[in-house]
């Protein structure tokens, strides 16, 4: 207890040294927590971007060609996949048929203002890919015979032709009759060009021409479920549905009993890259920390040289050399604990208050405060103060005692 009191007095006794050491430590602790938070956000952001572009891990993809597809066939296919993928594995499936260039979507009042990037979708595309809703809702539940059918646009398209509530006109370059669509949602799909998402069922219902060649991609994802299981689920679903699937890359006449799936997300390749990035951050932090420790040791040694007489007086009045050693170490530790606690508090306020407002990571949710890293920072800070104070403490304990009387 007396050591603690004395340590506190010692800190108070040398305000400039205490301040300089505190600043060094403060920066180091903030750096540790900052790196942890930034690393977490950066990782989440990279993962989110990949999930937006390629699907959540594990997402499997296969090319499909659905010849002469009817609404009934699609519904049968949907039911089978809902059962085999959705119910059985708590998973998601989505059919995405890219009709860019084949269908143009324009503003109802301005045919010259059109978008040629369009996908026909079935299933739960947002369950596969991370596509945050910016406004309105997604296409589900699809209701193919309601007119006008719904359409979802990305943010670029919304800026071009209008957002939720806007009426759009779609027409096919192959003579598809004009169909009106009502925008029900705006999503962030990661695309830098305008794109719209139409329900496949509605286009089949209102434009039979679109039955002709529906080739696209089938995506399947179930949390914690591997590729082989997904492949099996899809194979069974195809058989259950009775839908004729042709290999997209084949001649169109070849019947295949299933869809050959392959891994589509990059989850398995990202771990090493993210670890490397994180390692780089921590290396930078470690350097900061070493600089802080060296700085503290330097400040401490200079201080001991100035305090020779005071320390010798302490020794003269009965302090043991061990006690003087512990005094210097103790004051540094008290400083380390106080500074680390303050830095962690500041970091917490920054993470809670400022980080969520950053627009550079739109896909990332508000990050949790990295308590693990904060505790690590506290331990590291205390260790740093002990290491930084070791040389000064040894020097203090070796002060020549007879100096007191000179």
């Amino acid at each position: 207890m007396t050591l603690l009191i004395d340590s506190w007095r010692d800190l108070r006794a040398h305000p400039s040294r205490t301040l300089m050491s505190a600043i060094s430590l403060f920066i180091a602790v903030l750096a540790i927590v900052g790196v942890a938070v930034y690393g977490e956000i950066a990782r989440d952001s990279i993962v989110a971007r990949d999930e937006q572009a390629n699907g959540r891990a594990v997402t499997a993809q296969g090319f499909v060609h659905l010849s002469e597809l009817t609404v009934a066939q699609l519904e049968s296919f949907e039911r089978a996949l809902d059962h085999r993928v959705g119910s059985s594995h708590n998973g998601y499936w989505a059919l995405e048929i890219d009709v860019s260039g084949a269908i143009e979507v324009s503003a109802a009042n301005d045919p010259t203002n059109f978008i040629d990037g369009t996908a026909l979708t079935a299933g739960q595309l947002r369950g596969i890919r991370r596509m945050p809703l910016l406004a309105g809702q997604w296409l589900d539940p699809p209701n193919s015979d309601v007119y006008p059918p719904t359409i979802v646009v990305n943010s670029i398209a919304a800026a071009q032709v209008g957002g939720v509530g806007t009426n759009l006109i779609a027409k096919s370059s192959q003579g598809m009759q004009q169909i009106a669509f009502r925008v029900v949602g705006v999503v962030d799909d990661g695309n830098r060009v305008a794109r719209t998402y139409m329900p496949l069922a509605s286009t089949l219902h209102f434009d039979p021409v679109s039955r002709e060649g529906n080739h696209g991609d089938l995506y399947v994802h179930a949390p914690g479920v591997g590729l082989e299981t997904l492949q099996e689920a899809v194979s069974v679903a195809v058989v259950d549905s009775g839908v004729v699937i042709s290999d997209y890359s084949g001649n169109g006449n070849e019947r295949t009993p299933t869809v050959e799936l392959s891994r589509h997300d990059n989850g398995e390749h990202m771990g090493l890259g993210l670890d490397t990035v994180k390692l780089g951050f921590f290396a930078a932090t470690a350097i900061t920390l070493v600089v802080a420790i060296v700085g503290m040791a330097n400040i401490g040694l200079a201080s001991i040289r100035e305090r020779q007489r005071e320390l010798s007086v302490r020794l003269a009045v009965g302090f043991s050399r061990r006690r003087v050693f512990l005094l210097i170490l103790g004051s540094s530790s008290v400083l380390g604990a106080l500074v680390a606690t303050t830095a962690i508090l500041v970091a917490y306020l920054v993470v809670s208050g400022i980080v969520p407002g950053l627009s550079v990571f739109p896909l990332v949710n508000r990050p949790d405060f990295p308590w693990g890293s904060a505790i690590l920072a506290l331990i590291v800070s205390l260790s740093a103060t002990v290491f930084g104070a070791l040389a000064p403490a040894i020097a203090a304990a070796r002060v020549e005692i007879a100096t007191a009387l000179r």
Partner: protein
Amino acid sequence: MTATLCATGLTHQIDGMASPILKDVNIVVQPGEFISIQGRSGSGKTTLLSILGLLLRPQTGALSIGDVATGELTDTERATARRSHLGFVFQNYSLIASHSAWENVSLPLMSSRSVPARKHREMAQSALAELGLGDRTDAAPAHLSGGEQQRVAIARALVTQPKLVLADEPTGALDVETGEAVLQMLVDRVRAAQTSLVLVTHDPEIARRADTRYLLHDGELLRDTSN
């Protein structure tokens, strides 16, 4: 009765000096005795006081504090002996500038396990009050006069109720009038507490007030019996 301090045959040579600064010094301090050691600058007074105060080990000779022979004591045991039996008054006060008066006085108590921390302030304030500084206990040294600072230093030397106080030119940094008052206060306090006092000075007037007087000359400690 056991002597408070008994030193025999103390010899000490400082590196680089041709002859020893102390040669076969013998001194006995009885309980409650006031001893002065007079000598010119550089005569070895401070070195002798450092040895008597267990701050420096003599190259030869024996030193006992009470019943304790100090020759074989470790550094830690010597620190304990200093804390338990000795008090120091330094020429330039040697107060810690950032500590208040009572915190300076409590310094010897800080390293003592026998006195609980909660009593430090009370004991320090009491020691200061006895020296007429009861209303200056929270003042920093910078806000005290030279005489007041030396009184704080005396309170620090006496707070542990030592057997022996070693004072090195305690009035050296004070004007004559203040020095006289401070010295009187020191002598009064040690006499009241039956504490022995060894005072080093170059001032014959101050030395003359001691019960026993010594002269340190050419490294030898001589009894001064002159009037």
